[in-house]
């Protein structure tokens, strides 16, 4: 799971390299590649803090949904609790949406957002 995250967070990001190679090509191709770049941009799944949900429950849900080890899930839960939110997963949009359905199904406050870039 986290191997996927590392790939998405590669600082050489696909977006930057694509726009550099398409500036000298035809406009149609530029638009198509720009759309592809947009589609390829990863999404963050973010869990937000709330005053009601039990901390142990958030940890258990993160373990169950993402398959994280307890330590990793606990760390993320504590980040939610202390900072107000935490990016719990990063990847393609379709999977982000699937995760969001699951997290909302557990009544966690969660959103998805395009990774800035």
């Amino acid at each position: 799971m986290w191997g996927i995250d590392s790939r998405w967070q590669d600082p050489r990001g696909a977006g930057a390299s694509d726009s550099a190679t398409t500036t000298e090509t035809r406009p149609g191709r530029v638009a198509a590649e720009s759309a592809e770049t947009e589609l390829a941009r990863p999404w963050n799944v973010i869990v937000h803090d709330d005053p009601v949900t039990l901390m142990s429950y958030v940890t258990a849900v993160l373990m169950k949904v993402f398959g994280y080890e307890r330590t990793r899930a606990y760390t993320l839960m504590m980040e939610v609790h202390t900072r107000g939110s935490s990016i719990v997963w990063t990847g393609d949009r379709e999977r982000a949406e699937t995760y969001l359905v699951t997290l909302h199904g557990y009544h966690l406050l969660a959103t998805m957002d395009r990774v800035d870039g």
Partner: protein
Amino acid sequence: MKLRRDRQGDIWLENLPPFCADTYARIPEWLASEDPAVQARLRPRAARDGEVEAEWRRYGAPELERLFLTREQILRRDLSTLARARLGGGLRFRIARGHESAWLSALNGARHALFILHALGPGDLAQELDQVADPERQEALARITVLGWLQELLLAETAASSDMA
């Protein structure tokens, strides 16, 4: 209140005081509350971006509704086993094997619903029950606590059996 798992893997909640049994029996009612604030919390926004949110409402939300419907049916089925034990007189009901996730989710949702319906704040949850003057708020806080107990019991049980299906 006691939780045990039988040979079939079903969970039995036994020796339930009437207040606890009543609280668990009313979970579907609270989840179905038509209060707009409750519904907004149980079906929150999926994205800040309006376009993404609109797409979510079209494609993601219906899937979520199907999930909630299935879970409601699971809860009602399990709650239909709520009865007084033949000996000893305590109330009990069965959470069938594989229903743990539906219950954990519903318990969390019901806590949120009660919290909103009674206009409680984060500070209220930290208060001792006997320090809450208003009887209705006191009862709501007691029910939220009782819902949390079962969540903790189920979390401990599912952690032990890896059954948070």
